[in-house]
């Protein structure tokens, strides 16, 4: 199976102190470290496992500037055979639809049976996967937490429903799936793995190569524009519990039950 996985380079919230930049439209980026979006990493692992089982090839693609190459390489060190980097000055400032347009164009250049994205990134928009599917006119399932390959014509997939219920669907190939964390246990990639693929060439796809025009992508054609970015002022409502450990546990359980957190 030919699988395309779309990955994004993000500042990992666990390894950064995220604060809002003075202009209010972004976060402070001067002291950040980046990694691959966690959901995307699960998607790549899933693709590799499918290929290890049934044969085929995994291609990873990222839209971004040249820095994004680092994460494409990391995913290749994991086991993706091919890496692609979609970079062009006109791509900068694209909104979700713009990014999906670029990725859909890249997908059209190959013949992929399956396109995977992470369900979302830390920014929580969770929009690109569905848009790619729509642009390519392919079936789509979101927040997938289980994939079984069948006859090569369709997949049996699981989706987690709010509240912990599980749903099972069959979906025709080719299709687009957005992948939930926990679907697998992504393998570890160390410095050694990355060095092994350090000299593998990663083709760069620009706007011309992809055939996307400036009217569809980039800041000017973005129809969603961020106008403000701030951390809400902490409101009242924090409740401090007191008592012995056992009492604390009892009170917490009672509270969680009362608010519907646990049943």
């Amino acid at each position: 199976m030919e699988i395309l996985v779309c990955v994004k380079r993000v500042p990992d919230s666990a390894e950064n102190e995220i604060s809002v930049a003075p202009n209010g439209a972004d976060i402070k980026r001067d002291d950040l470290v980046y990694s691959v979006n966690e959901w995307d990493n699960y998607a790549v692992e899933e693709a590799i496992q499918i290929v290890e089982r049934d044969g085929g090839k995994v291609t990873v693609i990222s839209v971004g500037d040249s820095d994004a190459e680092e994460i494409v390489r990391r995913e290749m060190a994991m086991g993706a055979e091919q890496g692609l980097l979609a970079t062009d000055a006109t791509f900068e400032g694209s909104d979700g639809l713009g990014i999906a347009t670029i990725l859909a164009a890249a997908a059209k250049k190959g013949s992929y049976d399956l396109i995977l994205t992470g369900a979302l990134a830390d920014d929580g928009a969770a929009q690109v996967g569905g848009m790619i599917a729509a642009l390519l006119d392919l079936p789509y399932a979101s927040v997938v937490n289980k994939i079984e390959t069948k006859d090569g014509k369709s997949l049996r997939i699981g989706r987690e429903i709010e509240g912990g219920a599980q749903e099972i669907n069959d979906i025709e190939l080719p299709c687009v799936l957005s992948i939930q964390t926990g679907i697998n246990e992504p393998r570890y990639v160390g410095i050694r793995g990355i060095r092994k693929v350090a000299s593998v060439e990663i083709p760069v796809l620009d706007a011309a190569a992809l055939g996307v025009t400036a009217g569809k992508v980039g800041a000017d054609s973005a129809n969603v524009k961020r106008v403000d970015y701030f951390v809400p002022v902490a409101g009242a409502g924090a409740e401090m519990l007191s008592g012995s450990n056992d009492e604390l546990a009892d009170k917490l359980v009672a509270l969680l039950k009362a608010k519907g957190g646990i049943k």
Partner: protein
Amino acid sequence: MIHEPFSPATATLAGFPLWILFVLIPLVGIGCFAWIMARRAAPLFKGAPDPRFDRIPERIVMVLKLWLAQWRQPRYFLAGVLHIVVFFGFLVLGARSTEMVVLGFVDGFRLPGFGGALGEAYDVAKDVASTLVLIAVVILAIRRAFFKPARYAVPERYGKDHTPEALFVLGMIGLLMLSESAFEGSLLAAQREAGHSVTAFTLAWAFQQMFAGVATSTLAAVNLVAYVVHDLTFFFFLCFLPFGKHFHVITSLFNVYFMRLQLGNVKPVVHGITDAQLDDLKSFGVKKFEDFTWKHMLDFYSCVDCGRCSDHCPANAVKRPLSPRFISIKARDYAFEHYPVFGKSPTGDAPNLIGGIYTEDEIWSCTTCGACEEECPVGIEYIDKMVDLRRGMVDEGMVPQSLQKPMSALEKRGNPWGKLEKKRAEWTAGVGEGIEVKSVEKGDTADTLYFVDSISSYDDRSQKIAQATARVLAKGGIDFAVIGKDEKDSGHDVRRFGEEMLFQTLKEQNTEAIKASEAKTIVVNDPHALNALRNDYKDVPPVQHVSEVVALLIEGGKLKLNPLADATRTYTFHDPCYLGRHNGTYDPPRTAIDAIPGMKRVEMTGNCRDRSFCCGGGGLMLFYEPDEEQRMGVVRVNQAKDAGADVIVTACPFCMTNIEDAIKVAGLEGKMEVIDLVELVDRQMQQ
């Protein structure tokens, strides 16, 4: 030559001279033995290199101590003493066994030099030895069969009980002793009138008494039967040894000779490959059996199955899926199966060890505390094997999710929490009035570098230990500086968790920062940092743990301590694994504690010093989510309680974290307290 009244060498059976048989038995026996040994040696030649042909005097000392003097045996008193009896019995009886074999075809044979007084003295020794060995063997068999010490039990997942094998071997040893004595006793009975004496109350003497007055022809028959039994048992025993745990009778001498001599270190990925060449290696670590070094294979052969390692293994104690003894036994069985004495080795690709004989969790469960190695009577090592297996897993991407985050943070930020580099020295703000901690980051220099390491730099609780360290050093008049943002995690546990390349990166960055500081000595408060800088790094100044520095300051009168405010409390010292076992520092912390007037300190007898019980492990072990029934820290806290202590003093920030948690889990809050040694000194020192 004395002419014997009868002798196997002159005996005949239906006219057939039996000496021919007695020549054939040793020939066949030795031939079989040589073949078996050659087959057993086969995998060793396929193993990875392991240069242990150096440091000959030290190795000889180890042989004299561990092998000849059976140094570690009495740590388990009854079993140890009985083993010593059997061991020395075997040594003494070696000469007699040779004589016995030759007696089958040389009438009245004695070893050269044994004709006179020496021979007579030897006869006394060997008669006493075989008697004592028989007694020891009987006690051992009773103990094994009826009292069943818990450490010999084989949990179901590891296969069948080993008791039948043990009893069989004990039976064979008993038979050797009895047949030799019956042989001797029957001869003595026939020679009674000739005035041959024998040491009273020995086995040979008992047989002589028993056979008194029996006709010579009967005695001759008994003598011959005893001889045949002895001869056959002896060579069967010899050839049987390499098939089980009694292989150690042959291998332990070599295993001890080649045992690890250095404390604290970890073997390189491949011996003979420099750090700079690591990138060229195709594969890392141990994935298949043949990736083990030949010495590690010899370890597997030498394991006595005594269970002492597992008896002291904290992972085993809290029911993690690890028992070091079975790391050896499973690998030994693998070797026996894949390199069989008879028949061909299984063909095809060698299977992976992980998923084959070991599980991932089994190998991650080890805290590298070193208790097993300290205990093993034949010098078997585990830490290097664990690290090698982990290197293999890391290379294949098999790392639990719980460890991937901290590893990635270490790679990006130089600490497992992913905290900002620029905040590394923020703790210095809390040291207190009047003490300005110098920092290389700000351009300061000092003779002593205080290498803080990640936990004491970033963790709220551990920062207090760093602050106490700074105050104590300042009070002691030591001019010191910290590195600041360019200090990275020492990488101690990164290495021990198998991420060698990440360790190399951290080591290079730190080495550079340390060199740039121009310091002449380094002091640390974290034993893991101590061990990394002392035993893993090269080209850095000498390193001391703060407990060593404090002990010297106290002894030199530079630190004076106030009497305890609350003299009702009883203190005990928990030896951190990487301070004690791995670096041999047991006394300085005790010196420091005992220097406090009014101090009442007890030892956790049986679980202190080199038998200290791991608190749960430091570094990345803090992040690992093991499958266990209990926390190691809880076991430790209960040991302190049982010793009558209500304050645990430790000297490691990880011990502090683990023990503090364990006190809560054990429900001993308010009753038990833990304090770091430097915090104690800081609290008690006179201003």
